[in-house]
Each structure stands twice: as structure tokens, then as C-alpha cells.
């Protein structure tokens, strides 16, 4: 791969590159990315995306962003940060800071918003926040639990875990424009961690209705009945579906260790991908080729990635404090 940068007459910068097969001499790609000088790192990631696609046949996800929660300080003086960074961990920006826990960041499908849970009022509440400006609004602060927001594929709704005080957690869908709330599950067990199917017609969720946490799927239409999807072992939780809808990532209990696994939704085959002791919070890259998750190394939380074929992995370690609950953002336009 060869390339150059160039200053354009209109003040912006260009990155030109050419990818050539050194055995055949064939040109695989010739492309230019332009932008303001501050966007040159993004342009470089786009070059990587193209090379990855031309050689491996899958679009790269280097020019994307991740959100995660940083925890600084020592108990009892912990400090929480909601951070957005490039997918390689560079350019971290704190979009929210709090003395109270921040949890469960979730990207809107257009990558403009984050939904999350904050305990800043000393009770759980769900907020949506514009990443660029920081402008935000509280969308659910009902009595009891307000948790686990998940955006619908059309970006108009949030699936939530709500449990009235004295009630118990069930899955609901909140229409962000009308504030209409639809109850999806109604069960004395704990139902939580909703995740939309890519077609927006049903939700995956975790429930202990069968005695141990397992993953179920339920239609969002009234009267739908849940179907159990996981049967391996006695702990399968935190479902996340691949962008093409073919695989379900989850946290599974394997030999007393919490690990990231993927289940093929067509044939039910389960593969355990991670090797940690307490791996949690899987989130698919928008190309479906990689998962990011949190792990615990010693007593410190860091982030890690693993490819869905289990062959490649990275660790993203915080220079200070801990990082947890990663959420991989969508492709940018």
C-alpha cells in the first residue's frame, strides 16, 4: 500500500492511497478521502477499512467509535465517566461525568445518540444524550428499576427493563416521540437486558423464569409468547445479536468462569470465544466480525476484543482506573 497526503486548495486535506497485489501487480483499490485536517485520523481508519475489505472480503470497522464507562478513584470516592473513543481506543472524550454510577451505554442506530442509566438522582433513570453536543434528556425515571436501554433499529423506540417499587423487572418498549409505554413481558421472574432483532419485530432478553438465567425471544406485538433460545448450562445472559441477525452473543458460565459465547441462531451451535474469569458485556462491531467486551484482569476491569471465529483478540487496558461496559457504535455514513 502506498499513499500520500495533500493539501487541497479549499483548505481541507486529502489522503490518497493505492493498494496493489505485489504478486500480480493488480491494483486492488485506488481511493481518496478528504476532510478537515482534524479528520485525518478518521481518514486513515477508512483506508484500513478498505484494505481489510479488499483482502479479507469483510468491511473493516476501524473508522467506528466505541462508548464505555470509566471508573476512577478508590471506594468510597469513585468517579464515573461515560467515554466515547475511536475503535482503537484513541481520542477518548468524556461525554458525562458523575459521582454516581453510570451504566449500560447503548448507541442509537445513527450513531448520534447514547442511551444510558445514571444514578445521579440516587435512583436509576434512563437518559438519551446527543454525543456531539452533550444535550440530553431523561426518558424514564419510574419507581423502581429503570435499566438496560436498547434502541430499536429504526431509532424511534427504546426497549427498557422497568420494575415498579415492590414490583419486579419486566421488559417494556418506550416510544421516544409519544412517550407511549408498552409492556412486553409480564412474569414473576426477573426479565431484563432486552435486545432488538435487526428487523425490529422481536426482542431477545434474559429471564430466570426457568430457575436460572437463560435467553428468550419474544415478539413485540401484543399477546406474543416468549421462546427459550439457550439450553447449554445454567447461566446464559446479556444477549447481543450480530448485525445480520445470524448469531447471538452472550455471557455464559463455563467451568465457574463467565465467558463470551456466540450461538448460531439457525442451528443452535454454541462456541465459547473468550478465556477470562469474569468476561461480560459483549457488543458486536458493526461488521459482525468482532466483539468487544469487558474483562477483569486481577482486580482491574479492562476491555477486550475477540473475533467471532475466536482466532484474534486484543486487550484495551486503561492507563488509570477501570473501564467497563463497552458498546460498539454503528458505521458512520
Amino acid at each position, binding site marked *: *500500500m*502506498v*499513499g*500520500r*497526503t*495533500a493539501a*487541497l486548495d479549499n483548505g481541507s486535506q*486529502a*489522503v*490518497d492511497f*493505492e493498494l*496493489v497485489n*505485489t*504478486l500480480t*501487480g493488480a491494483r486492488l483499490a485506488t481511493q481518496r478521502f478528504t476532510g478537515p485536517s482534524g479528520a*485525518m*485520523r478518521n481518514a486513515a481508519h477508512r483506508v*484500513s477499512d478498505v*484494505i*481489510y475489505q479488499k*483482502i479479507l472480503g469483510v468491511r473493516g470497522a*476501524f473508522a467506528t467509535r466505541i462508548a464505555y464507562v470509566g*471508573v*476512577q*478513584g478508590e*471506594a*468510597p*470516592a*469513585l*468517579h464515573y*465517566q461515560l467515554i466515547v*473513543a475511536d475503535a482503537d*481506543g*484513541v481520542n*477518548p472524550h468524556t461525554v458525562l*461525568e458523575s*459521582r*454516581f454510577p453510570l451504566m449500560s451505554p447503548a448507541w442509537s442506530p445513527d450513531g448520534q445518540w447514547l442511551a444510558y442509566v445514571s*444514578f445521579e438522582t440516587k435512583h*436509576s433513570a434512563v437518559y438519551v444524550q446527543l454525543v456531539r453536543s452533550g444535550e440530553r434528556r431523561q426518558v424514564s425515571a419510574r419507581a423502581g*428499576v429503570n*435499566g438496560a436501554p436498547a434502541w430499536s433499529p429504526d431509532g424511534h423506540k427504546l426497549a427498557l427493563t422497568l420494575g415498579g417499587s415492590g414490583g419486579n423487572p419486566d421488559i417494556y418498549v418506550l416510544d421516544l416521540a409519544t412517550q407511549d409505554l408498552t409492556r412486553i413481558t409480564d412474569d414473576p421472574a*426477573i426479565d*431484563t*437486558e432486552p435486545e432488538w432483532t435487526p428487523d425490529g419485530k422481536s426482542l431477545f432478553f*434474559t429471564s430466570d423464569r426457568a430457575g436460572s*438465567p437463560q435467553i428468550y425471544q419474544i415478539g413485540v406485538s401484543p399477546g406474543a409468547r416468549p421462546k427459550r433460545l439457550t439450553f447449554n448450562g445454567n447461566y446464559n445472559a446479556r444477549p447481543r445479536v450480530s448485525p445480520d441477525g445470524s448469531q447471538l452473543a452472550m*455471557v455464559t458460565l463455563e467451568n465457574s468462569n*463467565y465467558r463470551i459465547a456466540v450461538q448460531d441462531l439457525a442451528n443452535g451451535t454454541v462456541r465459547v470465544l473468550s478465556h477470562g474469569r469474569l468476561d*461480560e458485556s459483549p457488543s458486536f462491531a458493526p461488521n459482525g466480525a468482532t466483539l468487544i467486551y469487558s474483562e*477483569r484482569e486481577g482486580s482491574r476491569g479492562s*476491555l*477486550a476484543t475477540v473475533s467471532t471465529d475466536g482466532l*484474534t483478540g*486484543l486487550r*484495551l487496558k*486503561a*492507563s488509570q*482506573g477501570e*473501564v467497563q461496559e463497552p458498546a460498539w457504535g454503528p458505521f458512520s455514513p
Partner: protein
Amino acid sequence: MNESKGCNLLRQPHTLVRCGAMIACLLGAMPAARAELQIEITSGVRDPVPIAIVPFAHPEGASSDLDVADVVQHDLEGSGRFRALPRERMPAQRVAPIRSRAPHGRPSAPTTWWSAALRHSITAARRSTSSS
């Protein structure tokens, strides 16, 4: 209290830890310091694709503070599926200042300006792949 309900939600050990932290953190705060993330490659494929990433030419006037080739190399190697050839074996590109006359289109000049670098990197790549 409401929080205790939330803490039991998943019945995972960490939620108990978090719960303790939650109660404790009502008491005070510490000044924030932002955590930078440092990447460490933990596993990769056995036969990564060798790739020659020639350092980008930075003609006069271009923003040369970002090393594009270095970012690309980190991306591709971090994926665990590529092996970049040693940078010291890549030719340095010497390019005369370029003024682009086609800001939004393809490079205005034919891409022959990098043909020498390309020739060098092809030779380096072939040498490297045949010796490994």
C-alpha cells in the same frame, strides 16, 4: 431500597461489587482523570497476510503531523490478520510539492508519482514473503 433490587438483577458477582460501590459513592467524589486505553494484541491468526505499508508522502502544505501509514499499520496488525513488513525496509517517498487541481475528485495527476515507491515495496514484499 430500589438499588438493592437492581443489584440482584443479574445475580453476577460483579453486580454485588458494584452495589457496594454505589452506596459508598454517595459519600464523596474524586477529581476526574481520563483513562487512556492502551492496546495489547493477545492473539492472531497463524498465517497473517503480509502487507507492505509504505510511509505516506507528505508534500509541502499537507498536514504531516499524522503518520497515516502508522495508523493503518496499527489497525491492520491489531486485527490479528495482517503482518506488516518492517518499516525500515520500506522506501521513503520523496515527492515534490503537489497542488491538487481537483479537490473533490481523483488525484489530478496520474498515480505515477508513487510508482518508484511501489516498485520498491513490491520487491521488498516478495523478498520478505519468500524468505519467511
